[in-house]
């Protein structure tokens, strides 16, 4: 999959020609710098490693610094490997949105979802809760209910959905339509929501 790294700017909406409200997310994508080109001879497969957002040298680890030096580029915050890039590139080249994406096509977007902290089973797994306050019950409206059968198996199955940490995980949403591309500002507008907070890093793939 080929793609680009970027940041979420935020959401907005507009009314299209049919009078339908279109929710959309603005993303700042690239420019991404090529840091390594992997070939079948040297690495066993074809791929291109790209980097996003330059940072100070002092913010990089020494091993990574050597890697960036070898490519002859400044240190960057995020690295990712993409495959199937049609354009011929060499280390140091910059990739922008128009190199990869077109308006109207469908893309997948990867982000890190907002952390929700320790959440109960109703929010985390969509349980229905107990369902009422009447019939003598109290203080267990959002309880998970039974965890399983009794003497057999006399234990709780692994993977049983329970309360716990929610969010702050990698989430990929599929098939978002590219509404618009503004190449001068490195902005891509996709239809629908994208995981993560504003200014969170996203990976757009196609």
């Amino acid at each position, binding site marked *: 999959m080929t793609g680009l790294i970027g940041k979420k*700017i*935020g*959401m*907005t*909406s*507009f*009314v*299209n*020609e*049919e*009078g339908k*409200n279109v929710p959309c997310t*603005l993303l*700042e994508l690239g420019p991404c710098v090529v840091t390594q080109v992997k070939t079948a001879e040297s690495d066993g497969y074809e791929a291109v490693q790209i980097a996003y957002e330059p940072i100070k040298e002092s913010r990089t680890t020494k091993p990574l610094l050597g890697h960036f030096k070898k490519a002859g580029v400044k240190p960057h915050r995020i690295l990712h490997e993409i495959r199937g890039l049609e354009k011929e590139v060499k280390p140091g080249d910059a990739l922008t949105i128009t190199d990869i994406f077109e308006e109207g096509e469908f893309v997948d977007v990867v982000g890190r979802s907002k952390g929700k902290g320790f959440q109960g089973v109703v929010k985390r797994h969509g349980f229905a809760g107990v369902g009422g306050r009447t019939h003598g019950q109290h203080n267990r409206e959002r309880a998970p209910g039974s965890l399983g059968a009794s003497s057999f198996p006399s234990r709780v199955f692994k993977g049983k959905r329970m309360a716990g940490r929610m969010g702050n995980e990698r989430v990929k949403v599929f098939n978002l339509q590219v509404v*618009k591309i*503004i190449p001068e*500002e490195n*902005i891509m*507008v996709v239809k629908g929501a994208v995981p993560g907070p*504003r200014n969170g890093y996203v990976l757009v793939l196609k």
Partner: protein
Amino acid sequence: MDPRIQAFEEQFLRNDLPRFGAGDTVVVYYKIREGNKERIQPFEGIVLQRRGRGASETVTVRKVSHGVGVERIFPIHSPLIEKIEVKRYGRVRRARIFYIRNIKGKIKIREHPNKYGEAGGK
């Protein structure tokens, strides 16, 4: 709001509409598609509120039709709005005049011909 979001919204904003607000009587000419035919349906009533900002701003218009109150919410910047005409500028003392729903009998709103200054608003 991020200035880049604002810039993106701007291209959808309509600046061909007159100024109006709560208490004004307006006619909204709304395009309706029936099969392949398109026609324009005027909707005349009192503006109850304007809500939202930017490209997603809406207006609530209320009229009484055959004794039944009818309210419609239009996205102001929708391309389906052919035009908006202001029939009467009304003077009201709040931004959202939901209290007129509860008025029995005739709704009286004082006229305010110069509501938006000499230019009459754009």
